[in-house]
């Protein structure tokens, strides 16, 4: 019987080696271990053995069964794996076919830039103020210390609706409106994005363009704070290594006033065509709010001081995206807009 078992084991193992398919394995399982299987039969014949031989043979037979079971198990896993592999291979796709893309919208570069500026200043605690684009001469000029006969008030340069009403030429009237609304409370910390209009239309001027204005009024606002705010803005907008440079200038509504340059975004300060070889790009006008403007806004300039700044959004967008023709921004050509 021992010999019988040995031969059976050998035979079964040989047959297992030949197996390729799960069905073959099943067949073998049935053939040896099924109800009528060869091993089962041998085990059933165990009763005819001598009592002392029974446990020995029983153990041997069980060992053979266990070994066949585990072998069958291993092979099943192996063959299953192979079959899955085969099936997956057959399911291969051409992954180089283009993806099915949901359609992608685009935001206009000017609104992108305005949004970015807004977010930078909101991070510094500024709120966003807005005002009418059709504005009273009073807010556009008078309240900003631009008297009636100032050259900036030329009919030639502004679009007028009536002698007293015009399309605002800058976002600064919102400064005056905000002061009028807020005084005597401080702090005032606002930026004002929006459309402005000037009677100019050539390669570098558009009759409608965008500005962002800033105003801070509080006890003890200093010129040095202006430098800090603008440096922080420049670094967030154009990169952490940005430098700024302030040059004395003149605006009727600020004093001291400054033109603010950032290091050229193209050449990083080395000098190129964009910056006229200076390494600097003029990007902002700024200054301390003129005491007369504070006064007209209802504040006492001895008690509070203020700083203000303003920038052209088109200029920032052109620098940021390397746009060399202002007109592109208002032509709305898909080939252009698609790039944002």
């Amino acid at each position, binding site marked *: 019987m021992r010999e019988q078992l040995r031969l059976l084991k050998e035979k079964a193992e040989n047959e297992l080696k030949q197996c390729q398919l799960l069905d073959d394995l099943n067949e073998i399982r049935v053939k040896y271990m099924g109800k009528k299987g060869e091993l089962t039969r041998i085990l059933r014949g165990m009763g005819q053995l001598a009592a002392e031989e029974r446990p020995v043979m029983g153990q041997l037979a069980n060992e053979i069964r266990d070994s066949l079971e585990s072998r069958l198990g291993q092979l099943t896993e192996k063959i299953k794996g192979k079959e899955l592999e085969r099936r997956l291979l057959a399911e291969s796709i051409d992954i180089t076919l283009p993806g099915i893309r949901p359609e992608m919208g685009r935001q206009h570069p000017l609104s992108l830039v305005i949004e970015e500026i807004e977010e930078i200043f909101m991070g510094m605690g500024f*709120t966003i103020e807005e005002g009418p684009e059709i504005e009273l001469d009073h807010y556009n000029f008078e309240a900003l210390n631009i008297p009636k006969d*100032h050259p900036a008030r030329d009919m030639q340069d502004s*679009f007028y609706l009536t002698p007293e009403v015009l399309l605002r030429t800058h976002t600064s009237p919102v400064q005056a409106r905000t002061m009028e609304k807020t005084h005597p409370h401080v702090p005032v910390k606002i930026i004002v994005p929006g459309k402005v209009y000037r009677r100019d239309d050539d390669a570098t001027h558009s009759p409608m363009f965008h500005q962002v204005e800033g105003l801070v009024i509080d006890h003890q606002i*200093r010129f040095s704070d202006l430098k800090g705010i603008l440096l922080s803005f420049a670094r967030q907008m154009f990169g952490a290594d940005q430098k700024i440079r302030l040059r004395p200038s003149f605006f009727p509504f600020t004093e001291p006033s400054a033109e603010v340059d950032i290091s050229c975004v193209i050449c990083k300060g080395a000098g190129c065509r964009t910056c006229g070889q200076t390494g600097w790009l003029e990007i902002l006008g700024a200054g301390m709010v003129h005491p007369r403007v504070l006064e007209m806004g209802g504040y006492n300039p001895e008690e509070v001081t203020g700083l203000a700044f303003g920038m052209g959004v088109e200029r920032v967008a052109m620098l940021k995206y390397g746009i060399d023709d202002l007109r592109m921004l208002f032509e709305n050509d898909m080939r252009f807009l698609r790039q944002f």
Partner: protein
Amino acid sequence: MLVSWKWLNELVALQKTPEELAELMTMSGVAVEGITYPEIELKNLKVGLIAEITDHPQADKLVICQLDVGEGEKKVIVTGARNVREGQKVPVALPGAVLTGGKKIESAELRGILSEGMLCSANELGLDVDKIPAEQKDGIYLFPAEVAIGTDVVQVLKLDDLILELELTPNRADCLGMWNVAREVAALTGGEIHLPEINSSEEGGLCADLTKVEIANQELCSRYVARIIKDIKIAPSPLWLQQRLIAAGVRPINNVVDVTNYVMMEMGQPLHAFDYDLLQENRIVVRRAEEGEELVTLDGQLRKLNPEMLVIADAAKPVAIAGVMGGLETEVTEQTKTILLEAAAFNGPSIRRTSHALGLRSEASLRFEKTLEVEQVRLAADRTVQLLTQIGAGVAVEGCIDCYPLQQQQQQREKQAISLRIKRVNQILGTTISAFTMEMILKALQITFLEKNRDGWLLLPPSYRRDLESEIDLIEEIARLYDYERIPTTLPEGVTTQGMRTTEQKLRYQLRKRMVGQGLVEVINYSFINRAQLDFLGIPDGAPLRDTVVIKNPLSEEQGVMRTSLLPGLLDTVKRNINKHNKNLKFFELGKVYFAEGFPEQSKLPVEKWALGVVATGKREKSWAYGAEEYDFFYLKGVVENLLTGLGYTENEYTFAAVRDLPGLHPGRTASIQIKGKEVGVLGEVHPLVLEKYGIDQRITMVNLEVEKLATEKIMKKGLVVPITKFPAVARDLAIIVPEEVKTADVTALIKEQGNEWLKEVRLFDLYRGQQIKENSKSLAFSLTWQAPDKTLTDEEVNVLHQKIEAALQGKIGAGLRR
């Protein structure tokens, strides 16, 4: 303002290179916009005297000149120039010379005669022919007799000078004169300044016997000084004077005109010379022009005058437009024997208005537009007389007329002292500048210390700095000379503030993001449109869209009125893109529209409203994976539905109602977009006749949403979350056949009305028209989803509900059931 480097160096001692000075000036507020360098290094050019001219034996068009260039032996030079005469002094390029454009000069044989160089024209010397005297433009350049033979032409003509171009801010009109530029430079560099001394005149004298001055309009002319110069000999100016004018960009004309221009360049004070004998009654009246008066100005143009304009008149008629341009009739000419010299102070804004009205801008008007330093008017007149006498142009008549009606008030104003608090300077700037440093700066600016206290000073700025009127002006002066770069960089102290968008701003932010998120492209169009575009859209008279705000002085009719709708701009944008072969487009614009609403009669300002405009046309092209998708009515309807759902409106809150009568839109393909029954916008196909007017031959669908009508509270707080039930949903299909005119929305509404709260969704999944059903009907197939929050629904329960719905559909809209 053009500043000659050589001239500046004569006025102020400088230790700096032009580049260093330019940087220093730019960084302290008087910006140097550019430096013009001499084009090329000219050399071996000498002043030569033409001693003799003989004909060339071989050539009719050439002559042989014997030139004395101060080297003993005469040089033989062959020339073809027509204007050479014996005794003239001319520029000679000797062998080895290099001319403008790099042209090298060597001895060369010209038709058998060896020419030892060349005679030069102004152009060949690199002179700007538009700036030199007219008679020097063509032919060989001619020097005046006083120039020494053999001197270096480069030195004589200052061809190696360089020019700083100043870009002046409006407050620094003082720097429109070289002397004040020198004062600014001296303050910046500490260099010593040398200004010429002026022989001042006495008031009255013989001059007062010869003429009278009357100022009829004191607010427009605060001072008028007249002086008289007799025995005038009109001639070209000396070369040095010509050179300085040329460097300053002013063309030399004759000695009298040149001197007035020169003094203007020195002192910033424009002057004018009249032919004394041509003035009626030899006197001057400063007055407003009378209606209908005319004047032929120096440029030969007849100018119509009006009472808005200030004129200088004689006893009878205007002889000059004050501060702008003189009259031709009284111009100084070769025949002039006596001149009346005017130096005056006019009202700047008035001059500006006049020069704009006439379209006439001159160096004089440019300066008069900024109200000038009144105190120096007489000095400028005296300086002019001094120079005219010095160059022998005439003989000064003793005395002057100085008509200065408001002298006292004027002088008082100019002597207004300013107090400056030392602490205030540092407070404003955020600095710790010492009182000593401040004092140094103020003194460098020639500011006088009237009083000194521990806390501050009482100061008087020099009269030429009219821009310094108050403490803050002086603080700025200290800051700019201290150097902005040295001011520290800080951030504001004080309470922290919260940066954020307002609710309205958040709504607009969301609209923009949601449109972009759905694949639309944002555009920005001009806020003004052509009124004719409203005609294109067929907007009837009296309609709200006709209530436009009109621009009085538009650049063109194209931009004549403020838009009342975003559609015209969007259609223009579509048209432009189609012209560039982009045919599949979907744009949106978020911008303002403007309505007069009673402006200007009944309201101070027009009304501005935010609108969201959308246009879509063409299609999404088919791809390997999906078919083409039209950008049509239903595409945009889906966009709007998503948008409103995204903003927090439920499907029960918004509806679309068919409208037939909107101008510019397709009568059968237009819907009013309503929220809780109130219209918030319109969705529709653009009328084919409108497209025809725009020359667009593809269908366009548009949306207009009135942003302010979208409730802002929606984006702040969406509805509370509905709990998700754990009981399964049951889906049932329901297919019906209805007459074509039955609206799907009505069917859906009826189904919803008949279902109970377990009916969660009604989705139309098929729409069929065709042979299998009756003509003029359609088949609608819905999928209904049922779900209860507290139990699993049984088939029976759902069957009962379905039967109820079917019965209602049959009964109320005559629907046939498809099974």
